[in-house]
């Protein structure tokens, strides 16, 4: 079951979910509109390596906005910290943003119960697109879960700002050494 807007508001008030800052006028009938934060990260090496930490460059979106280019991947973030120890969150771009040809997340709209923090957005436009800090970019919906709870304790907990992929953190020391050897 998907939460209605009034239930999202009630749950934000009684603590079953947390959205900070919370603005009542960003509540929709079945979702909440989240805003784009000011920081963007781009990977700087020509090839992203799943097994290694990848260097990034940080950009602040100025008052005149920032033009996203097709073919580039921008890691952005929500202005809001969003999470719940009760409900399963799902994040997508808003339709107004999709109609501008902007992908706001890639492949992973489902959040974990127990994750709290700013959500990293995976921005990739179909056409060059100027975006603005603070614009309402995404929608988070919440689903009722079934079963006992095992809260998120993962590597992105309490994220502040955009976070690059941490796949390399999951590798064992041996696995990492092997991957380095393969590259060498």
């Amino acid at each position, binding site marked *: 079951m*998907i939460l*209605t807007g*009034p239930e999202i508001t009630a749950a934000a008030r009684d603590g079953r979910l947390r959205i900070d800052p919370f603005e009542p006028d960003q509540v929709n*009938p079945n979702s909440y509109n989240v805003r784009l934060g000011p920081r963007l990260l781009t990977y700087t090496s020509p090839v992203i390596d799943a097994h290694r930490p990848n260097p990034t460059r940080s950009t602040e979106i100025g008052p005149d906005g920032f033009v996203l280019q097709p073919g580039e991947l921008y890691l952005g973030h929500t202005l809001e910290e969003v999470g719940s120890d009760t409900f399963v969150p799902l994040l997508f771009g808003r339709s*107004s943003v999709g*109609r*501008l040809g902007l992908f706001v997340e890639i492949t992973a709209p489902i959040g974990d119960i127990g994750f709290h923090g700013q959500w990293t957005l995976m921005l990739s436009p*179909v056409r060059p697109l100027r975006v*603005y800090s603070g614009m309402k970019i995404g929608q988070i*919906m919440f689903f009722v879960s079934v079963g006992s709870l095992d809260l998120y304790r993962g590597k992105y907990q309490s994220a502040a700002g955009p976070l690059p992929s941490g796949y390399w953190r999951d590798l064992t020391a041996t696995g990492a050494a092997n991957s380095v050897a393969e590259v060498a």
Partner: protein
Amino acid sequence: MILTGPAIAAAHAAGEISIDPYEPQRLSPNAYDWRLGETLRVCSGDLDAATPTAYEEIVLPETGLVLEPGLLYLGVTYERTGSERYAQLINGDRTTGALGIWVHVSAPLGHAGHAIRWTLEIRAARPVRVYPRQTFGKLVFLHTFGAASSYQHHGLKYTDTDGIGTSRLYEEIPGGPR
């Protein structure tokens, strides 16, 4: 909870779900298999969230149209769908995905109270020919939890969309259209 095909049929018969035109053979085990509409808007320029989008509108010929990678196409569902009781989720289907077509980039959510022909945000991985009224995706219906709130009473932007809607995000950007 997601409605099964028979539950969608029952809700349609009870007037809790509207699908127009409605064809019972388009019901699948837990979805309704919707079709691509007959027009597309092609966006080939640079876009700005603070500015209305320029586009060219094309009527899809019966012989089909080749979608090109790198362009943004806004389409529309052939069906108008709505429900005051259930929320809706729209997606492509496995067949369309295997052709390398993204049919919907943004939130697949139809809020309770939506009664629309859905605007589609279409992107192709490879050149691919599409045809008017071809089956394009699946629409599922979800039970909601909590006091109801209808999209029709929110003063939101796309309450009665009957065609392709370009983005009206520029209405929200401080300073208005540039």
